[in-house]
C-alpha cells in the first residue's frame, strides 16, 4: 500500500504540473507535522506520507532520518535536518531557520521505522542516475515483494541498460508477481522460473508459500524449482562446511604455530603461550588508538603496522621470559609448566591492571569488513584474510627454519646441543632467539585474532588448550604436522557442529584425539630416527 502511494507519487512527480504544487505542499506540511512525535506508529505512517509526496525535500528528510540527523522541536513541531557541523536546515523549506531551534530531539527510529525507511527510499531511487542506488533499490523491492511495485518496475526495466541491475529488477518483478493475489497461473509459473535462477534461501522461502497453497500447476512448478534449489543448497552446505573448517583451521594454525616452535621444537611446555597472543592483540589495540587520535587517515593500515610491532613486543617479552625464568629450568618439564603458568597469570593481571578488565575495541579496516557472494556462499572478508594470513605466516616460518642460517643453527641446537656447541654455535643465544621467534609468531597471531575475538586479558586462555591439542595431534616438532592437524581439526569440527551441536562436537573431537594419541602417541607425523631420542 505504502509503495503504491509512493509509485503514484513517483509518476506524479514525473508529470508534475504547476497546478498540483499547492496541494502537494500541504501534504508535505501535514506529513512533517506527523513525524514530529515520539510514537513509532505515527513516524512509520509519516514516512509513507512523506514518500508519497514525491517531493525532493521529503527524500532529503528521509535520507537525513536514515543517517539519524533528522530532529524536531516538540514545542512548535518544527522539523529540521541537522548537518554534521551542527547547523540546522528547515526540512519543510530547505532554508536555514530564522532562529536556532530550541530543545530539539532526534526523530526516533526503531526496526519498524527502519524497514519502512528502507522500502520508501528503495522505491524512490528505482530511477536514480546512480547504478549502485538502483541496484540497492531493486534489492529492496525484491525483499519487500510488494505487488504494487510492478508498474514502477516495468518502467524501470524498460529504461535500464545495466544487465546485472536489469536482471535483479526482473527478479524483483517476478517476486512481486508471486505475491500478487490475482496473478494468473501462467504468470506465476513463468515468475517461478525467473526467481528460481537466484537459487538461494530467500527464494526457497518465497516458494514455500506456493508449495503449500497454490493451484496444482503452480504447486508443481514451485515443487520442481524448490527441489532443484534444495539439492543445490545441500551441495553448497558441504562446500560451506569445508570453507568454515578451513577458516577455523587457519585460526587454530595461527594460534598453534608459535607453540609448534616453543613446545614442538624446543620442548618447553609453555603455558604462557596464550598470553603472547594476547599481547599481540593489545599491541593492535594500542596502534589503532594512536592512529585514531593522531592519523585517522591511516586507519586501514593499522593491521599492517601492528604486525611487526606485535612480533617485536611479544618476541621481546618471550626473550625476557626465556632469559629470566626458563633457561634455569631446561630439562625440568614439570617446573617449566608451573613457572610458565605463573608467568601467564602475571601477564594477564598486568594487562588487566594496565588496560582494565573490559574488552577493548579493535576495529576492522574497510577491506576486512563485510562479505561477498561466491557461488551462493557468503564469504566474509575478515575470515578470508585470516586464511591467507595464516598461510603466509606458515610459509614464512618454514622459510626461516629451512633456508636461513638462523634456522639451521636452531635445528642444529635442538637436534644435538653438544655437537652444535662444539661447532661454535652459541647455544644459549640460539635458545633465547628461538623462544623469542615462537613468542613473536604468537604475537602476530594475536593481530589476526583481535579481528574475530574479544580483546580482553582472557584472550589467550581460550586458545591455549586448542593450541596444545593441535601441536600434539600433529606430531611434536613437525611444522607440517601442525598444519595438517589444524586443518583436520577445523574441518572435522565444522562437519560435526551441524549434527552434534557446538558443545557435543567439541567433546567428540576431544575423545577422538584421546583415542588417537593412545594409538599413536607421537601424533600424526612422528619424528623418526635419532632426533627422537635427543
Amino acid at each position, binding site marked *: 500500500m505504502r509503495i503504491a502511494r509512493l509509485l503514484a507519487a513517483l509518476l506524479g512527480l514525473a508529470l508534475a504540473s504547476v497546478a498540483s504544487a499547492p496541494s502537494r505542499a500541504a501534504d508535505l506540511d501535514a506529513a512533517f507535522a506527523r513525524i514530529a512525535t515520539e510514537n513509532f506508529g505515527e513516524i512509520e505512517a509519516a514516512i509513507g506520507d512523506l514518500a508519497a509526496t514525491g517531493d525532493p525535500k521529503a527524500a532529503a528528510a528521509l535520507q537525513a532520518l536514515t543517517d539519524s540527523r533528522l530532529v524536531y522541536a516538540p514545542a512548535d513541531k518544527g522539523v529540521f535536518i541537522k548537518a554534521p557541523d551542527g547547523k540546522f536546515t528547515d526540512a519543510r523549506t530547505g532554508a536555514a531557520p530564522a532562529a536556532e531551534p530550541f530543545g530539539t530531539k532526534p526523530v526516533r527510529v526503531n526496526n519498524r521505522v527502519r524497514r519502512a525507511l528502507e522500502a520508501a527510499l528503495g522505491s524512490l531511487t528505482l530511477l536514480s542516475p546512480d547504478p549502485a542506488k538502483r541496484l540497492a533499490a531493486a534489492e529492496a523491492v525484491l525483499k519487500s515483494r510488494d505487488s504494487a511495485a510492478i508498474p514502477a518496475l516495468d518502467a524501470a526495466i524498460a529504461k535500464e541498460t545495466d544487465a546485472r541491475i536489469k536482471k535483479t529488477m526482473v527478479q524483483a518483478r517476478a517476486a512481486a508477481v508471486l505475491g500478487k493475489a490475482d496473478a494468473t497461473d501462467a504468470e506465476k509459473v513463468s515468475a517461478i522460473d525467473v526467481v528460481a535462477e537466484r537459487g538461494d534461501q530467500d527464494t526457497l522461502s518465497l516458494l514455500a508459500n506456493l508449495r503449500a497453497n497454490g493451484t496444482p500447476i503452480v504447486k508443481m512448478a514451485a515443487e520442481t524449482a524448490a527441489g532443484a534449489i534444495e539439492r543445490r543448497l545441500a551441495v553448497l552446505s558441504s562446500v560451506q562446511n569445508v570453507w*568454515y573448517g578451513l577458516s577455523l583451521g587457519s585460526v587454530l594454525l595461527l594460534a598453534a604455530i608459535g607453540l609448534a616452535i616453543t613446545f614442538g621444537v624446543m620442548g618447553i611446555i609453555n603455558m604462557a603461550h596464550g598470553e603472547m597472543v594476547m599481547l599481540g592483540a593489545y599491541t593492535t589495540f594500542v596502534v589503532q588508538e594512536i592512529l585514531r587520535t593522531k592519523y585517522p587517515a591511516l586507519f586501514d593500515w593499522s593491521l599492517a603496522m601492528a604486525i611487526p610491532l606485535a612480533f617485536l613486543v611479544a618476541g621481546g617479552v618471550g626473550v625476557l621470559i626465556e632469559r629470566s625464568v626458563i633457561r634455569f629450568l631446561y630439562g625440568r618439564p614439570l617446573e617449566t609448566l608451573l613457572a610458565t603458568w605463573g608467568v601467564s*597469570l602475571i601477564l594477564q593481571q598486568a594487562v588487566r591492571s594496565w588496560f582494565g578488565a573490559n574488552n577493548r575495541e579493535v576495529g576492522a579496516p574497510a577491506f576486512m569488513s563485510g562479505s561477498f557472494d561466491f557461488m551462493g556462499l557468503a564469504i566474509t572478508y575478515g575470515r578470508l584474510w585470516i586464511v591467507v594470513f595464516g598461510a603466509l605466516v606458515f610459509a614464512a616460518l618454514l622459510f626461516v627454519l629451512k633456508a636461513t642460517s638462523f634456522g639451521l643453527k636452531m635445528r642444529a641446537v635442538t637436534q644435538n646441543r653438544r655437537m652444535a656447541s662444539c661447532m661454535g654455535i652459541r647455544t644459549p643465544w640460539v635458545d633465547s632467539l628461538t623462544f623469542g621467534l615462537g613468542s613473536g609468531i604468537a604475537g602476530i597471531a594475536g593481530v589476526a585474532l583481535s579481528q574475530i575475538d*574479544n580483546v580482553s586479558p582472557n584472550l589467550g586462555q581460550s586458545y591455549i588448550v586448542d593450541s596444545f591439542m593441535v601441536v600434539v595431534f600433529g606430531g611434536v616438532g613437525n611444522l607440517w604436522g601442525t598444519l595438517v592437524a589444524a586443518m583436520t581439526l577445523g574441518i572435522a569440527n565444522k562437519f560435526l*557442529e551441524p549434527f552434534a551441536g557446538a558443545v557435543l562436537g567439541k567433546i567428540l573431537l576431544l575423545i577422538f584425539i584421546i583415542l588417537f594419541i593412545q594409538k599413536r602417541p607421537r601424533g600424526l607425523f612422528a619424528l623418526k630416527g635419532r632426533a627422537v631420542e635427543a
Partner: protein
Amino acid sequence: MSLRFKSFVAAAAVAAGVTLASAGAQAQTIKVGILHSLSGTMAISETTLKDVMLMLIDEQNKKGGLLGKKLEAVVVDPASNWPLFAEKAKELLLKDKVAATFGCWTSVSRKSVLPVFEENNGILFYPVQYEGEESSKNIFYTGAAPNQQAIPAVDYLAENEKVQRWVLAGTDYVYPRTTNKILEAYLKSKGVKSEDIMINYTPFGHSDWQTIVADIKKFGSAGKKTAVVSTINGDANVPFYKELGNQGVKATDIPVVAFSVGEEELAGIDTKPLVGHLAAWNYFQSVDVPVNKTFIDQWKAYTKNPKRVTNDPMEAHVIGFNMWVKAVEKAGTTDTSAVIDALVGVTVPNLSGGYSAMMPNHHITKPVLIGEIKADGQFSIVQQTAQVVGDEWSDYLEGSKDLISDWRAPMTCGNFNVKTGKCGGASK
C-alpha cells in the same frame, strides 16, 4: 601461583587494615562486605560493581553514615573461582562480621555462597538477572527474574515485530538452560509450534560462530519473521555480533534480543553493524530522567572517567544498597534478623524514574525496558512497561508453577506449594 600469592597479600593487607581500624574505632563503623571477582574471567563484569559499591558507601558516609556510624567497605576478591566465593563469604561473615554483603554475578557463585549465608544468617544482595527457581531467606534478589526480562522481551517481539519463529541461543550453563526452558514453555503456551523454535547451546567463550550464524540465517528464511533470543554469556557475544555483522544479518531482517548484553559489553565492539538489535533490561544508561542523570554524573566524577558507562546490575546495587540503608534505619539496628524482616516492604526510588519495592519473596518490583542498540553503543528505549513483580518460581515450568515464596511470618517459606498446602522445607 602468583594469584594466590597476590590474594594472600591482599588479604593480609585487609587484615592489617582491619586490625588497625578496630584498635582505634571499636564498633564505630558498620562493615559492608563486597564479594565481587576482581581477577579472573568474571573481573570484566564484576570490577565495576565493586567500584559502584565503594562509591555508594562513600556517598552515604558523606551524608553522615548510618545510625550515627560510618560505613566501612570490606572488599574481598573471590577471583572468579566458585569454591573461593564460599570461602570468602565465610570470611566476611565470621571474621569481619559484616552487616550485609553485596556480591556475586554468576548463578554458580550464588549457589556456592547460599549455604554459607543461610548457615550464618547473613544478608546477601544479588544484583544480576538470573533464572529464578530459587528463594532464600538470606538472599535479596535485586536483579531481574525471568518474568522481568525474558518474557516481556519475547512479548515485545511478538507484538511489535510480529515474530513467529524463534531461535533460542545460549551459552551452555544453568541460566540460559533454565531461561530457555521457561521461554519454550511460554512460547508453546502462546501457540508457537515446536518446528518454529530452534534451540542452540554453545560452550563458554565460543568464538567461531560461522556455522551457527549460517544456521540462523537458514532458519530465518522459511518465510516467517524470525528473531533470536540470546542468553549468550558476556565474552562470547563480541565474536557472535561480529559474525552477524559480517554475514550481513541486519536487525531489520532478523533482530537479536539479548539478556546479557549491556552498555559495558558493547563498549568493546564497533556497534554500527548492530544498530537495531535489542536488549531487555530494567535500566539503561539512556533513561532520560533527572535521578539517572545525577547518578551518571556522580559515577563519572567518582571514576574520573567521562567515558565510563552505567548498566543494569549497577542500578540493582544502587536499589539494593538504598533498600538496606532504609531497612537498617527502620529497624534501628544492623542485627541481621531484624533487618531481614524490615527489608520486606521497603520502597526506594529506582533510576528509571519510578519506585522499587522489596516483595515478601525477596525479589523487587521494577519496570522492563526494551532498548535498541544505537550507533554510539547506547540504547534507544523503545518500550517501557509498568512495574513488574519478580516471580521466583516460574508459572511456566512443571514443578515450580504451584510454588510461592513468602518470607514473612507466619509462612516464612521459600517454596510453599499452594496445591498441597505444604512448605517444601529447606530452600533450594
